[in-house]
């Protein structure tokens, strides 16, 4: 990955990170979109999409519900898409395993940083309290902009971290992998689909949707068996 491509990935990762909560919540931050965008940065959108679709199964669990802390998959998925498109991640299952592990970590970190950011935003409110309670439009705008700037910083850090850690770890995994390649691949699929099933059950396991979820699983399994 050239420095220019890495820079572009960070820019895209930052925009995607802003999308999750700050603006405009159009779900560019879903891994399936973010991965494709990350791959596109290095000229390999489909390699990025392949990783993004896998990470999307993790993200099924993540609903940005109100004040609860949740992981942020967007910036990490952009980085993962870019890594998969470049040599490091996508070509070998061991590299993919490394990248997925790194994204798991940075997605969690992203949620934690969001919590830190929301505390810092409280400080903004406190600093502007007098003007805010006097109905000063500049204070309102200022607090919004400070929050936006913090979120952009948060997203940029996440993208850089995932790119760097992913590059290093994927390199080490590709050269040092002793076991069969298929083992790495099976582990990634089992982990993502397993989390997907758990999330689906958590979301739809109660009331009327439960029977539909089970019906869906059955129908999907039938299609899968025929197709396999």
């Amino acid at each position: 990955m050239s420095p220019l491509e890495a820079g572009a990935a960070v820019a895209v990762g930052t925009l995607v990170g802003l999308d999750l909560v700050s603006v405009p919540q159009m779900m560019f931050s879903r891994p399936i979109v973010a991965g494709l965008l990350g791959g596109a940065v290095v000229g390999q959108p489909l390699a990025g999409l392949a990783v993004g679709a896998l990470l999307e199964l993790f993200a099924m669990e993540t609903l940005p519900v109100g004040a609860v802390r949740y992981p942020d998959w967007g910036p990490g998925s952009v980085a993962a898409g870019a890594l998969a498109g470049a040599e490091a991640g996508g070509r070998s299952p061991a590299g993919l395993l490394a990248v997925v592990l790194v994204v798991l970590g940075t997605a969690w970190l992203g949620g934690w940083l969001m919590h830190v950011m929301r505390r810092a935003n409280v400080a903004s409110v406190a600093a502007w309290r007098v003007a805010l309670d006097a109905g000063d439009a500049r204070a309102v705008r200022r607090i919004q902009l400070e929050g936006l700037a913090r979120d952009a910083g948060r997203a940029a850090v996440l993208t850089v971290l995932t790119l760097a850690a992913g590059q290093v770890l994927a390199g080490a995994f590709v050269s040092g992998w002793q076991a069969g390649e298929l083992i790495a691949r099976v582990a990634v699929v089992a982990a993502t689909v397993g989390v997907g099933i758990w999330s689906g059950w958590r979301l739809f396991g109660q009331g009327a949707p439960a029977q539909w979820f089970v019906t869906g699983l059955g129908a999907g399994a039938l299609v899968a068996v025929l197709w396999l």
Partner: protein
Amino acid sequence: MSIAVYRIDDRLIHGQVVVGWGQVLGVGFIVLVDDEVRGSDWEQELYRMGVPPAVSVEFAGVAEAIMRLPAWEADPRRGIVLTGDIDGMVTLCTGAPDRISRVNLGGIHFREGRKERLRYLYLSDEEATKLRALARCGIEVTAQDVPTARPVPLEELLA
């Protein structure tokens, strides 16, 4: 015990209550204890909108709630009882002694004079004293916004 949670939450019925607690516990009814909402048709209509059709919502004033508590506890479905403020829950607890063994602090947000205790819990010193008094009556008071979070005991909050 048919009432699974007694909760203080100034947003009353919202996503954490319906999706967070309601779905996890398989709740069949929610009791909203608030004198003002009890007297306001349009607010009742709004709160009904926030709840899936399989879950019924009851509205009661605080005094009325004390009378109806035994009936709710005998209900075969599981329920959640909500008040919007600490005073409402304190009145409920003192009006129906020994019925309520645990109180959940779900969300009390910033207002002038309140200090941050948790990210979703801001309490004035006076409010903290009221909660301590509840705890002294043998009621277990913990803060927990959603079921997946750790319940934080009152002593830890006020430490």
